[in-house]
C-alpha cells in the first residue's frame, strides 16, 4: 500500500515535469529553439500569480486565467518578437540561438530579482486546493495531483493530435525542417513560431504555477527546479510528446518510490541525493547515453565567436592600472575588489573553452566549485585531505578541477551544439546537487589564507590572474591558438590540416577547468567560507552568457567584464548585472556580437580601421587571378 501511495505522490511531480517538458518540446518543434529560459518564464508567471493574489488581492478565479492565458503566452510572444525573430531572420547559428536563450533566462532572473527581490516566498497560491480522494483498494491520491495528471495527459493528447493529424502540425514541421522552402510555399513562418512560443510560454507558466506551492518561490529556486525537468525532453530525444509524459511520470514515481529505501552513513548521503535529484541524474545519464539529439534547423554549430573585437590599445594599461589599484574602487572596500580577479579567472576559462576552442560550456560553475571545495578542503585539512598551506591548496584545487575537466572533456568529443551545452550543464548541476549542496562535504569549511590581510590577499589574487593571463596568452596565440581556432571553425578542415582535434579539445577542457578551479578557489578564500550558491548551475549559465556578450574570443573583454560585473552589482541594486547581461544577450539578434560588436562598430565609425571591401577577387595577385580564370 505504501508503494502505491508513494507512486501516486510521485505522479504529481511527474505531471508537472511533463507539462514543463511539453512546453519546451512544443517550442522546439515549432521554432527549432531549445528554450532553456522556460524555467525563468515559469518563475515569472508564478510570481505574477503570487503578486495578483496576495498583494493585489485578486480572486484566484480571475488571477489564474490571467496568469496562464495572458501573462504566460505574452512572455512567450515577447521572447519570439524581441529575441528569436531577429535571430531567425538572419539565419543565426544554433550557438547564437542557444546564447540568446540563456540570455533570456538571465534576463528573467534579473527582472524577478529587481521586482520581487531574492528572498523566498512561502505563500504561493495553489490552483487546486489539496485534499485526499479515496481510490479503490484503500489508496488515496491528492486532488491537486490528480488534476495535474489529467492536465498533462490532455495537453499531451492535444499536442500529439495537432502535430500528426492537422494542417497546423504539418506546417510547423515544414517550417522547422526547411524554413526557406516553407516560406516559398506561402507558409507564414512567423505566425507558426509565434504560436509555438505562446504555447511554450503558457505551458511553462502552468508548470511554474503548479510547482510554486510545493517548492520555493524564489527567482533561482523555482527556475532551477523547472530547468532540471529538461531531462524528460532529452530522454524523449526532442521528438515525442508521449515520451515526454511517460518519462516524466516514470522519473516522478521512481523518485517517490526511492523514499522507501534507507541506508546508513555515506551511502545514505549519496542515496539521499539521488532520492531528491533523480531528474538531474536522469538528465546527465540521458545525455551520456544519447550523444545526438534530434536537432533541427541549421545543425549543430559549436562556435560562439568570430574574430575578436579590436580593443583600443589604451584599454590594456588602463585596465591593468584599474585592477592593480583597489583604492580606485571609491565606494567599496577591498573585500568587494577581491571578487574581481577570481571572477576574471573564471571568465578567462570560458573565453578559452567557448570563445577560442568553440566548445559551448554551461558547466563552468561545476569546475569552479570543485576547485573551491578542494582548495577549502586542503586548507582546512577536511575530509581526510592533508592540510597544506593556502597557496598550495589553491593550486591543488585548480589541478583537481583540471582533472575533472579532462574527464568531462571526453563526452564532448562526440557532442556539439545543443547536446554539448546540455551535457556540460548537467555535469555542473550534478556536481552542485550531489556535492556542493551536501553538508557532509561542505559544512564547517571556514578558511582564510594567512597572507597578511586583505590587500596582500588581493595582491596574491592579481599574481594568480597574471599567471592565468599568461597561460591563456600561450594557449590562444601562436601555433596552439591557431590550431584551436581552426578546430573551432571547421573540425574536418583542421583534421585535414593535420591538427589533432581530439587532443586539442581535451587540452582545452582541462586548461579551462584548471583556470575555473583556480578562480573558484580564490572566490572561496576571499569569502572565507564555502558557499554552494556561489557555484550554482545558474551561475554557470550567467557566466557563460556574460563572456559571450562581452566578446567570447578576447581576454581583455573577459577581465573587464569581470570588473564591470562586480562593480555594477556593488554600486547598483544587487542583481542589476543579471539584467544588463540578460538584456545584451537577449538582444543578440539585433546587436550581433554584443559589446564586442558595438566596439568594432564604433572604432570603424571613428575611422580607426576600414571595414574590408566585399570585392575581394581584385585583391588576388595576378597569379591567383589567372588561376581563377579572372584574367586571360
Amino acid at each position, binding site marked *: 500500500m505504501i508503494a502505491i501511495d508513494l507512486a501516486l505522490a510521485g505522479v504529481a511531480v511527474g505531471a508537472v515535469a511533463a507539462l514543463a517538458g511539453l512546453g519546451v518540446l512544443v517550442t522546439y518543434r515549432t521554432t527549432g529553439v531549445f528554450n532553456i529560459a522556460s524555467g525563468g518564464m515559469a518563475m515569472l508567471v508564478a510570481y505574477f500569480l503570487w503578486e495578483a493574489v496576495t498583494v493585489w488581492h485578486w480572486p484566484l478565479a480571475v488571477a489564474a486565467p490571467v496568469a496562464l492565458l495572458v501573462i504566460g503566452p505574452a512572455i512567450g510572444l515577447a521572447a519570439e518578437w524581441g529575441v528569436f525573430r531577429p535571430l531567425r531572420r538572419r539565419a543565426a547559428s544554433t550557438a547564437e540561438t542557444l546564447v540568446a536563450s540563456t540570455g533570456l533566462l538571465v534576463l528573467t532572473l534579473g527582472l524577478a530579482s529587481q521586482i520581487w527581490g531574492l528572498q523566498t516566498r512561502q505563500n504561493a497560491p495553489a490552483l487546486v486546493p489539496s485534499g485526499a480522494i479515496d481510490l479503490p483498494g484503500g489508496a488515496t491520491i491528492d486532488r491537486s495531483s490528480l488534476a495535474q495528471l489529467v492536465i498533462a495527459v490532455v495537453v499531451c493528447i492535444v499536442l500529439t493530435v495537432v502535430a500528426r493529424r492537422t494542417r497546423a502540425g504539418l506546417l510547423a514541421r515544414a517550417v522547422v525542417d526547411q524554413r526557406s522552402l516553407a516560406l516559398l510555399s506561402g507558409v507564414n513562418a512567423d505566425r507558426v513560431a509565434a504560436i509555438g512560443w505562446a504555447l511554450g510560454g503558457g505551458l511553462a507558466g502552468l508548470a511554474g504555477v503548479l510547482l510554486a506551492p510545493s517548492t520555493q518561490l524564489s527567482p533561482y529556486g523555482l527556475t532551477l527546479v523547472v530547468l532540471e525537468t529538461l531531462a524528460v525532453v532529452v530522454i524523449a530525444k526532442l521528438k515525442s510528446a508521449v515520451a515526454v509524459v511517460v518519462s516524466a511520470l516514470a522519473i516522478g514515481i521512481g523518485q517517490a518510490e526511492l523514499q522507501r529505501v534507507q541506508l546508513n552513513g555515506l551511502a545514505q548521503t549519496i542515496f539521499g541525493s539521488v532520492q531528491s535529484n533523480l531528474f538531474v541524474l536522469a538528465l546527465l545519464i540521458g545525455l551520456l547515453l544519447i550523444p545526438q539529439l534530434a536537432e533541427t534547423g541549421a545543425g549543430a554549430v559549436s*562556435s560562439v*565567436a*568570430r*574574430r575578436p573585437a579590436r580593443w583600443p590599445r589604451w584599454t590594456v594599461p588602463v585596465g591593468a592600472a584599474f585592477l592593480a589599484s583597489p583604492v580606485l574602487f571609491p565606494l567599496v572596500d577591498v573585500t568587494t575588489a577581491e571578487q574581481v580577479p577570481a571572477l576574471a579567472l573564471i571568465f578567462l576559462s570560458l573565453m578559452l573553452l567557448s570563445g577560442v576552442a568553440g566548445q559551448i560550456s554551461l558547466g563552468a560553475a561545476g569546475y569552479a566549485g570543485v576547485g573551491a571545495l578542494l582548495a577549502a578542503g586542503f586548507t582546512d585539512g577536511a575530509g581526510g585531505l592533508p592540510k597544506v598551506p593556502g597557496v598550495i591548496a589553491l593550486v591543488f584545487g585548480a589541478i583537481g578541477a583540471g582533472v575533472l575537466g579532462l574527464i568531462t572533456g571526453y563526452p564532448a568529443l562526440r557532442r556539439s551544439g545543443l547536446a554539448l551545452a546540455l551535457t556540460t550543464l548537467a555535469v555542473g548541476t550534478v556536481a552542485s546537487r550531489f556535492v556542493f549542496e551536501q553538508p557532509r562535504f561542505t559544512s564547517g569549511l571556514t578558511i582564510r589564507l594567512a597572507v597578511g590581510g586583505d590587500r596582500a590577499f588581493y595582491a596574491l589574487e592579481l599574481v594568480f590572474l597574471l599567471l592565468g593571463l599568461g597561460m591563456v596568452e600561450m594557449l590562444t596565440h*601562436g*601555433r*596552439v591558438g*591557431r*590550431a584551436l*581556432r*581552426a578546430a*573551432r*571553425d*571547421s573540425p*574536418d*578542415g*583542421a*583534421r*585535414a*590540416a*593535420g*591538427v*589533432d*582535434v*581530439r*587532443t586539442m579539445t581535451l587540452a582545452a577542457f582541462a586548461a579551462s577547468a584548471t583556470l575555473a578551479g583556480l578562480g573558484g578557489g580564490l572566490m572561496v578564500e576571499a569569502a572565507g567560507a564555502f558557499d554552494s550558491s556561489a557555484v550554482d548551475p545558474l551561475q554557470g549559465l550567467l557566466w557563460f552568457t556574460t563572456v559571450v556578450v562581452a566578446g567570447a*574570443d578576447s581576454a581583455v573583454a573577459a577581465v573587464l567584464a569581470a570588473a564591470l560585473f562586480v562593480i555594477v552589482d556593488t554600486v547598483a541594486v544587487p542583481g542589476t548585472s543579471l539584467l544588463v547581461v540578460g538584456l545584451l544577450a537577449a538582444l543578440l539578434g539585433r546587436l550581433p556580437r554584443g559589446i564586442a560588436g558595438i566596439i568594432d562598430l564604433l572604432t570603424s565609425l571613428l575611422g580607426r580601421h576600414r571595414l*574590408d571591401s*566585399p570585392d*575581394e*577577387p581584385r*585583391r*588576388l*595577385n*595576378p*597569379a*591567383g*587571378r*589567372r*588561376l*581563377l*580564370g*579572372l584574367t586571360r
Partner: protein
Amino acid sequence: MSVLVAESLSKSYGGLRVLDSVSLTVDAGCVTALVGSNGAGKTTLFRCLAGTLRPDSGRVLLAGRDLTRLPADARSRRGLVPTYQVGSVFQTLTVRENLLVAAENRHRFGLLQSFSNRQAREADDRVDLVCDELGLGGVADVPAGELPTGTLRLVELARALVTDPLVLLLDEPVSGLDRRQAAAVSTLLRGLAGAGKAVLLVEHDPAFVEEVADEVHELAGGSLHRVAVTAETGKPS
C-alpha cells in the same frame, strides 16, 4: 607507381552495403577521377580514404604503409590530404593563418617544438611560397570568412599544398565555380600531377573530369569499374 592503395574496402549502413570490396590504386603523377550517380558511395569511399569514416573491412595503404587504423589528422601528417566539398576553411582566421595551421601541423605537435623558431621560420617560408605560387599574397591578411567562393577554393587547395602532400584527395573541387574558373583549377591540377603529385578527385562534372583526369573510375552498386584512361597513358579504356 601506386602511392595510394585501397584494398577491398567494404562499408554498410544498416542493411545497405554501400561499398562492396572496393579496390583502387592512385598513381603518382596522375589525376584519378571517381565518378558515379548520387548515392553511389563516392563520399563514403572518400571518407574511408580520408579517415573520417572507418570501413567495415579492407585496408588503406599510403606509400606501402597501412593507414587503416589511423585517424584523419594522422593520415594528413603522413601525406594523404583531403579538401572538402562543403567549405572547410577556417572562417575567422586570415588566409595566411589558414595556411600556417597546415604548415605548422605537418609534424606531430610537441610542446618544445611549439617554441622552436626554426620550425616557425620554415612554416612561414612555406606559406609565403605557396601564397606566391597561387597568387594569394594580396588577400593573405584578409579573414577567410570575407572571401568569395572561388578564392576560398583556392585557399583550401593552398592549405593542402602547404603540407607538401603525397596524395591530394579532392571532393568536388569545382563545385560552385564557373566554367572559366573550373578550367583554371584543371590547369592547376594538371600542373601538380606534372610535378609528381598523385591527385584523386570525386567529381560530378563530366566536362571537368574529361579535361583533367588521366584515369576515371565509376562507382556503381557498391563496386568500382575503370571506365576510361587517357591516350597519354596508353592503357585501353
